[in-house]
């Protein structure tokens, strides 16, 4: 039933529906929960991005003093980290394919790889922070720096949250539980965070 017909239902005069078992057509609750959470992440990063653009001194908005914005450099490590995150996402996809096709060996190896690459990404981001602060790019020195730290921290925290569910999936796998759904959801979550990172990277690069 389409959303439109659901919302235009004349519920006071339509009998029926009570014999249909909702479990037949409903996706798992956790999947819906993850999708709803994507909405929260989208708003969060959308707002940070618009604050970023406004703080830069968007023409005509009258915000911020023009000219105090000094863009940060883009060291190679930033690209290396992005590539690691891409690989991590690819590994999750492999784990998901393995889970769906019942290839336990592929699933197990890809699962471990995906988590390890995720940790590697976070470590790389921390190295990036150290590199920047060693070069004098403190958060307090310039709004561009402050936004960089803010965005990477928010993104990193979300990825760390994903790693929590990765640990749960690994433990579930060891205990012999069915981890197909957790793996599928983690994979989708990782792809989403990859997309967020790509957009944030584009924002950082273009300004």
């Amino acid at each position: 039933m389409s959303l439109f017909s659901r919302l235009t239902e004349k519920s006071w005069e339509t009998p029926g529906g009570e014999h249909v078992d909702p479990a037949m057509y409903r996706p798992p609750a956790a999947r819906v929960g993850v999708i709803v959470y994507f909405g929260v992440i989208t708003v969060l990063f959308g707002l940070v991005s618009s604050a970023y653009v406004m703080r830069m001194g968007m023409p005509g908005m009258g915000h911020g003093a023009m000219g105090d914005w000094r863009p940060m450099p883009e060291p190679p490590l930033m690209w290396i980290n992005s590539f690691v995150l891409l690989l991590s996402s690819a590994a999750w996809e492999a784990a998901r394919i393995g889970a769906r096709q019942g290839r336990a060996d592929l699933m197990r190896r890809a699962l471990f790889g995906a988590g390890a690459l995720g940790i590697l990404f976070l470590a790389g981001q921390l190295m990036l922070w150290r590199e920047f602060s060693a070069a004098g790019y403190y958060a307090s020195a310039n709004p561009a720096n402050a936004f960089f730290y803010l965005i990477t921290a928010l993104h990193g925290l979300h990825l760390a949250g994903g790693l929590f569910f990765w640990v749960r999936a690994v433990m579930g796998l060891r205990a012999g539980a069915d981890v197909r759904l957790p793996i599928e959801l983690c994979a989708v979550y990782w792809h989403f965070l990859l997309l967020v990172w790509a957009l944030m990277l584009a924002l950082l690069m273009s300004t």
Partner: protein
Amino acid sequence: MATVTIADDHTHFYHPKTWIGKYVWSQDHKVIAIQYSLTAIAIGLVALVLSVLMRLQLGFPDTFHFIQPENYLQYVTMHGMIMVVYLLTALLLGGFGNYLIPLMVGARDMVFPYVNMLSYWVYLLAVLVLVASFFVPGGPTGAGWTLYPPQTVLEGTPGHEYGIILMLVSLALFIVGFTMGGLNYVVTVLQARTKGMTLMRMPCSVWGIFVAAIMALLAFPALFVACIMMLLDRIAGTSFFMPMIMSMGKDLGYEGGSPILFQHLFWFFGHPEVYIVALPAFGIVSDLISVHARKNIFGYRMMVWAIVVIGALSFFVWAHHMYVSGMNPYFGFFFATSTLIIAIPTAIKVYNWLLTLWRGNIHLRVPMLFAIAFLFTFIHGGLTGLFLGNVSVDVPLSDTFFVVGHFHMVMGVSPIIVIFGAIYHWYPKITGRMYNEALGQLHFWITFIGVYAIYLPMHYLGFLGVPRRYYALGETAFIPESAHLANQAITIAALIVFAAQAIFFYNMFWSLFRGPKADPNPWGAASLEWQTPDTPPKHGNWGDELPRVYRWAYDYSVPGAARDFIPQNEPHDESARYHRT
């Protein structure tokens, strides 16, 4: 232990064995709802006491020497923030949302009970951090509940050392906790409705809470971002919001930040927040009116659509709080227009409530009295909102007591009145006991007349130009003697209303132990929460089998039916014909 319980699958249903598992670290939505509600009411009482202290100072300046200007500002700030976020949001969504959603949609619990439990404990932590700010050197922040930079973090603002840090941390924690709860409310409504419970068979209460939860999930990130950025400005020396400032001849080290950017972020949260509080109240009041007027809600589909439309529109009106902020004047035109457009779906709702009452079989029990009182206070507050939504009217009224009167009527008094009505309405289901009707009526009349005595004169003060947030007016030429008199009268009314709340608490507490045993469905209500096998409902809500829903929640006074209501889980037979609205 299962983390997912939906539909009829209770094989994995987690049943706690110990007292602590049942009542403290509980994953039962009903226990969590009560934990949420009691915490919210407790912290709300703190805010209520603060408001009395403010009124004492305003009514009788130079009398209470323990209230210094900085204390007054702290009272203003903490009263506002606690009431809006920690009381209203937490009570309506965390309290009523938790209690009503699974019962009204016919579920055994929330879909993620563990996350639900976590949500409450993070909320409690946020409240404790907030309370802690009363006890740090310098006291809680006195920046006003809107926390506008740059003054929020500047020397001279009370609580600029630690109070503001604790406030920002507490808000961030609240948002994290709320997001967990909000995900639960939304996904439970989408995924755990029982057989036959189509979206359009849900009671209006669930619709209000559902849309408000979605809005909160999308609006609170703005406050979260603003809090984190301000926290960094305060402790890490960044300049997100802080412009270059010379204070006492000293450069504070900030450069180029935009205070207006904070206002945009704050109100992108702040305006939807008004409706996050109002929509659950709208929904609940629809149900109270329908049940106690023994009549189906007028224009059910219109009511639901209006809730959705109001929710969507409320994201496009935030800058009407900023007409005098110095933003681009063209914005004012857009935001005034969008603000006035919201009046359309809101008016639809008001007319539908009135038309539900029209020729209804109205029972003036305590919940109904509060529901009808809400119509008065809400129409009143809504109409003054139309004044303030217009730029040219708002500019002279901005930051006067007219604004205070307006928003207290529309989002202070109105939701609180609905909350009282809702507590009286569901008290028999929650506790299994009946409260004392006479005490309830007494509480109602003092509260209802009292809030008018408090807030009506404030509009007059506002027209005179009496500014809000001032510690004392002193000898000001444009403020006549009558304003001082009005202030005294308001304070006396406020003290009476404050004292009258003791009747409510006494009634609730006494009835909990001594009240007569309540009928499982004392109001003859059709919605599912009244059809539980046990009163109060046990863990798992529905006994062995989930209810099956055959009709909408508003089959009252159906021609040909045996009783004047037909429960949602009663199958159709030929005795009652369908009636059309």
